């Protein structure tokens, strides 16, 4: 009976972790890939000094946000969603939705940054070749995105890796409530504090397996391409 509950809780924690991080990354990809592609394209097109300055500022901002401390993000989300906060009326604090918002804020800059670099690295030569072969600007842009697909996929995998292993932010905004907002990372913290090492180690092994699967996927991607 106890073992059954132990197993059920582990499954609940694992599924919640995958659901929260997966949702954050899917939404993050929907926002981040178009923005990253746009910024990757812009660098060769902007001629005017003022626009170049805006471009540099935007890219610096993205790079800064790629290294956002998760606890700070958690704190900001907490202050926004707390009952007296500007978004308190939504009633999202200490729910999986609050955790998704926290991780979303963290993963969007990662997806934008990696996508931007991937697109920018092939933009000039591929776009020009496509245009020379008779492509319209849209056809050339599509080809550039296709040629940087490995980088775009990498951005998603890196973002998922960052999200699933994050602890500070979701601890603050999710509250680490058993059966409701407890994820692999926050559970490891609490189980270690309680001295439940077997539970903590089991969760740690699951987290490590997920991390290994992510790295395996990344390595396979890097081996498969791009070949240029």
């Amino acid at each position, binding site marked *: 009976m106890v073992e059954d509950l132990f197993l059920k809780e582990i499954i609940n924690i694992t599924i919640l972790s995958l659901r929260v991080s997966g949702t954050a990354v899917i939404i993050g990809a929907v926002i981040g890939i178009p923005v990253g592609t746009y910024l990757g394209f812009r660098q060769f097109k902007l001629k005017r000094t003022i626009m170049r300055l805006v471009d540099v500022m935007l890219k610096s901002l993205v790079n800064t946000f790629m290294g956002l401390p998760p606890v700070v993000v958690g704190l900001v989300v907490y202050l926004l969603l707390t009952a007296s906060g500007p978004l308190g009326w939504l009633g999202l604090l200490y729910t999986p939705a609050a955790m998704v918002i926290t991780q979303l804020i963290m993963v969007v800059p990662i997806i934008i940054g990696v996508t931007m670099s991937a697109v920018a690295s092939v933009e000039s*030569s*591929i776009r*020009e*070749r*496509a*245009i*020379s*072969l*008779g*492509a*319209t600007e849209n*056809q050339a842009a599509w*080809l550039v995105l*296709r*040629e940087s697909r490995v980088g775009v996929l990498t951005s998603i995998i890196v973002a998922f890796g960052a999200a699933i292993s994050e602890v500070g932010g979701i601890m603050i905004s999710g509250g680490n409530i058993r059966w409701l907002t407890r994820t692999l990372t926050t559970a490891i913290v609490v189980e270690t504090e309680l001295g439940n090492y077997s539970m903590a180690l089991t969760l740690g092994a699951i987290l490590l397996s997920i991390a290994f699967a992510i790295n395996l996927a990344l390595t396979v991607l890097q081996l498969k*391409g*791009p*070949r*240029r």
Partner: protein
Amino acid sequence: MIAVELLNVSKEYSGRVVLRNVTFNVHEGEFFVLVGPNGSGKTTLLRILDLLEEPTSGKIFFDGEEVDYYKDRVPLRRKIGMVFQQTVLFDMSVYDNIAYPLRIRGSLSKDEIERRVMNVLEDVELRGFDRKNALTLSGGEAQRVALAQALVTEPRLLLLDEPTANLDPKNVSIVEGVLSRLNKERKTTIIMTTHNMFQAERLAQRIALLNEGEIRAIGTFREVFGYQSQLTW
């Protein structure tokens, strides 16, 4: 009939003059070769002819019609084929690389695309390479795929920027053979740049000598160089 005409074409980058009042014309079906040392403006001139760059001043005419840079240049560019010195191929099969310019035009059936791709693969002696990833090819093979990409659309004007610069003699011979046949049999107008004076002598009907952005001489090889075909830069 004049296929291409340049009238006082100049190009500057941040005040640095790369081309200065370049004026010449190329006849339909002519094999025209631009020779000149590094930095003489050959590549810039070809990029302007491929409509990838606008001249700072001057006019360009294709079939007697002046290029209007305010208009959509895609229809005009689709009549031109260009092979860059640095080969840029896409991360897809050789077949898909060559089919790409036909597919984006959207006017040919799948069967017609296949027929044209296979024919041009035969022309550049790359039969059996269609399924290989283009990025796994050797330098010579890659350059021949780039040539095939430019040829498959059957362009009226073919621009080649030192297409054999980094190739071994076997690949040079294949590329030169393809260009010669194309020019003689299909009467395609070709403008090519090269460092290789022997190659210029072998292929060109007329030569223009470009130095420091200016045309210094123009005419047949003999008119430009007399008997000094051993001239080196």
